[in-house]
């Protein structure tokens, strides 16, 4: 659906996209994640043909976004960052303006996004959340093959955010390809089949959210209270595969507090050990990292001095690309 090779873009000598390769397959929801200034938006603007790359190639549904824009753009639905509609344009007029011959029934979409009562409202009178929902309606209006959503849920309250997520899930069910640009990592983790992590215009890594978490933040932490002898259990746990350290703190009068840190398998290993000892602690807690932790570790690794043999960047980027 989308094939990008060697994409470069600079503004006034400052490189914002640097040799980016990415692929989006038909029916996938792919997220581009990274901090502000990572080059995410410029990358998707090149994909949409809104910016001319300095070098590299971009193909979207087999078409060149610049040379074949007239054929391509009717197949794209876009929700752009930092864009607006004229303040005095009403919702129904916006629908009439953007609807093509392929358009679906606008009333259904407006109802689904809670805007049916706002049909006659001017864009300038709408809240930030309503505007975002209207942009989504416009992005989906013409049955696009590829939907590009840039900072999808910016300005939405939690309930509206959940509704928009559900709409994106529905797009997945319908087989629509979605390219999602976000720095909301819980959003990327919840919605995306694959994510592409960018920093300073470069792709650091890509893969399924769970894969990235396992790759860059594969640790786990297990905490529990232990009523018996701490020394003996501590010694046992330290010899357990995957355990990196065991901390024992004063807990309550009846029990000491164990914290076991290690690879993800320590969850099962500690559980098994506790079952073997016939003690299921009521306060057992497990902490595992999410995509945000993985991205932070990935970014920290990228900004650390190079370490040839173990650098996650050099090890892993090629694995998924």
């Amino acid at each position, binding site marked *: 659906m989308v094939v990008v090779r060697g994409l470069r873009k600079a503004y006034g000598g400052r490189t914002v996209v640097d040799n980016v390769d990415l692929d989006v397959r038909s029916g996938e929801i792919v997220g581009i994640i990274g901090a502000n200034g990572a080059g995410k938006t410029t990358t998707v603007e090149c994909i949409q043909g809104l910016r001319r790359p300095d070098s590299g190639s971009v193909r979207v549904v087999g078409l060149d976004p610049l040379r074949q824009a007239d054929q391509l753009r*009717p197949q794209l639905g876009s929700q*752009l960052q930092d*864009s*607006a509609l*004229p303040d005095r344009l009403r919702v129904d007029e916006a629908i009439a303006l953007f609807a093509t011959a392929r*358009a*679906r029934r606008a009333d259904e979409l407006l109802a*689904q*996004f809670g805007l049916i009562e706002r049909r006659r409202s001017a864009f300038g009178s709408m809240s930030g959340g309503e505007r975002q929902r209207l942009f989504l309606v416009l992005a989906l209006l013409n049955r696009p093959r590829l939907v590009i959503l840039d900072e999808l849920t910016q300005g939405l309250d939690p309930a509206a955010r959940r509704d928009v997520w559900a709409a994106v899930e*529905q797009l997945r069910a319908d087989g629509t390809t979605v390219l999602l640009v976000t720095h909301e990592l819980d959003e990327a983790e919840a919605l995306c089949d694959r994510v592409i992590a960018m920093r300073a215009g470069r792709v650091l890594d890509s893969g399924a959210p769970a894969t990235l978490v396992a790759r860059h933040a594969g640790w786990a932490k297990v905490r529990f209270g232990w009523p018996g002898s701490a020394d003996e259990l501590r010694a046992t746990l330290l010899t357990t595969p995957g355990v990196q350290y065991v901390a024992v703190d004063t807990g309550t009068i009846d029990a000491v507090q164990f914290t076991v840190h290690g690879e993800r398998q320590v969850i099962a290993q500690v559980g098994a050990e506790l079952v073997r000892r016939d003690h299921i602690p009521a306060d057992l807690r497990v902490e595992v990292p999410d995509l945000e932790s993985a991205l932070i570790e990935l970014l920290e690794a990228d900004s650390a001095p190079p370490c040839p043999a173990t650098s996650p960047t050099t090890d892993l980027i090629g694995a998924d690309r």
Partner: protein
Amino acid sequence: MTSVATTAPSTALPRRVASATRRLITAEIKLMIRDPLTLTFVFAFPVVTMLIIAGSFGRDPDPAFDHLDPAHWYVASYLTVMIAATGLIMLPVHIAAYRERGVLRRFAAAGFPRWSFFAAQLATGLVTIVVAGAVLLAVAAPVYGVPAVDSWCRVVLGLAAGAVGFVSVGVLLGSVLRSARSAQAIGLLLFFPSFLLGSGGPPPQVMGAALRNIAEYLPLTLVTRAVREPWLGIGNATGPLIAVVLLAAAATVVSARRMAL
């Protein structure tokens, strides 16, 4: 829970919709008549100033006004004030605001061809001028009367060429200037001298030599002469008319090439 009902694109029946240009023109005309800047500068300002200025010199024929009724001299001049207001203020501010707020990006991403936006702005500007001109004549008629038109063809040609030229200049300014504020500042700076020296201010005969020389070469003066002289039968204004047609053609070509979404 939100769900999006979809139909496979291949099975969707195409329905009749207007072309992109027509949809843009429809939306832009609606927006234009809701815009306070348009209402103020293109509709209200020329009418109010025409009522004041045209009534300031009495109704007797005056040598400074080519021995005509000064009120009629101004009524025949003021149609070009709205042409200038549309081209120098309304359109530049409108288009620059669109660029600044990302509206043009949204149009581009939605697949509106570059020329469709230019065509829409041209059409919107011309419609605005026609409607504002009709309003001005409707107000002038009961107060001062509308002078008879001596040469319809030349007047219409002068108005049309002037309108196309100034609208094209407006589109060009809007595509060059990066913010609505700068467009407004530049637009006002261009508009008021043109208005005072080229159309709605004192007649050239009462100006000093230096000002008269400057006024003579202002584009708005050329448009005003191309309209007023054949209207009032005080000349053919062939020279100004040719100059206005050439300026309009050049402005249209340059702005059409420069206009980008």
